[in-house]
């Protein structure tokens, strides 16, 4: 299920660039379509290690650090200042022109993360 992301941070001018870890570079005041693949990449890039140290003293792995990767929250579950994310149903209208995320608006290499 793709998503639609409206960016409107009141402290930024329209057109000001902002970078979201896992999604890429966007412009304030624009609306973007986000594909399922991008949304999944967002969760992957915001994953965290939820592993623990084995605490069972009877276990042969007692005291060993277990690695476990926990995906980050979905775009619908996060609260990003000035950004509204909605699920898109087929051909859902938008109040503003939508920039296709496949059209190159988000950075091709969001790991660059801008200059700051």
């Amino acid at each position, binding site marked *: 299920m793709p998503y639609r992301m409206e960016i409107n*941070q009141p*402290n930024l001018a*329209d057109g*000001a660039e902002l970078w979201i870890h896992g999604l890429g570079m966007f412009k304030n005041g624009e609306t973007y379509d986000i594909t399922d693949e991008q949304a999944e990449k967002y969760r992957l890039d915001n994953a965290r*290690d*939820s592993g623990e140290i084995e605490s069972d003293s009877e276990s042969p792995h007692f005291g060993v650090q277990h690695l476990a990767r926990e995906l980050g*929250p979905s775009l619908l579950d996060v609260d990003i*200042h000035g*950004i509204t994310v909605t699920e898109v149903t087929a051909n859902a209208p938008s109040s503003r022109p939508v920039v296709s995320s496949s059209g190159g608006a988000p950075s091709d290499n969001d790991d660059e993360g801008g200059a*700051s």
Partner: protein
Amino acid sequence: MGIGISGGGSLGLAFETNVGVYASPTKYHPILSESLEFMPGLMYRRPIRQSIDQIGVVPGNVSVSGTVSAEALDDILVYYLYAMRMQIVRTGTSPNWVYTCTPTSLSVFPTRTLSLTVVRNSQTFGYTGCVVSKLTLGIQNDILQADMDIIGLNEAIQNQPSPTWNTTVPIGPGQWNVQVPTGTQIFDMDTFSFSIDEAGTANYRLKNTGANAGRGAQFIGFGERTVQMTASRDFIDRTDYNAFQATLPQSITILGTANSSVYNSIQFLMGNATKSAMQIVMGAQGDIVRSTLTYDTVIDGNGNACQLAVNTQETIS
């Protein structure tokens, strides 16, 4: 939870509507380091009672303190200036604003307070009632760095934030206009460190309500302000040294322009600075003879010890 590294962390800030009441971040900025710390102020009991050990602990007055070090980005610095004792006037037209910041003298309180949200190893720390007790702007690794000494009221866990990052850049080599005195550009300074110390302290009052069962500071107050600058210059002749010996005040202006854009700059002016120390040292055969200067300020004709002007596209209302 696994072991984390600092690079995965973040710091966000927001102005508080009510002092000490947490506000979710509205702005994030890259940091070089932070050391915000909850200060429990414990009192260990050592009465005489046939024991030479501490016999107990009494929960004390709590506060927050630490330093946030960051590249001095124009869109960020303004937020921290609001958390000092500044009168800030915004001029210009959207999107290019000029924030002119002049120290005020009539209050012990900052203009606004901040909530600082720090994520360390995926754990969220929400620091509230934060003010900037001391701001230091200096050249570090050839770029302008800002060190904010923070004092706050309290800390509590908060929801994990989701940052967004802006693309402003710091002020680096080739982007400086140093004027000593103001109006005369010089080309022999390579480092400086400018500081405004508001002498902030946590103030506790006898009470039984509020955060931490009433043990939080009632407010953070500011004391006597000190504005100073240190700098290093090539030593050419005795002109400046004679002024030092004669205690002649000077007006000093330093302007840094980020990204060669006149709309992204940080300028500070000391209208009435006096050199309180001037060391001219020969260290080794190959060393360039330089002077190390310490400037202290007194108020100028407008009653200001300094003035900062920040040009930025950040809209703060």
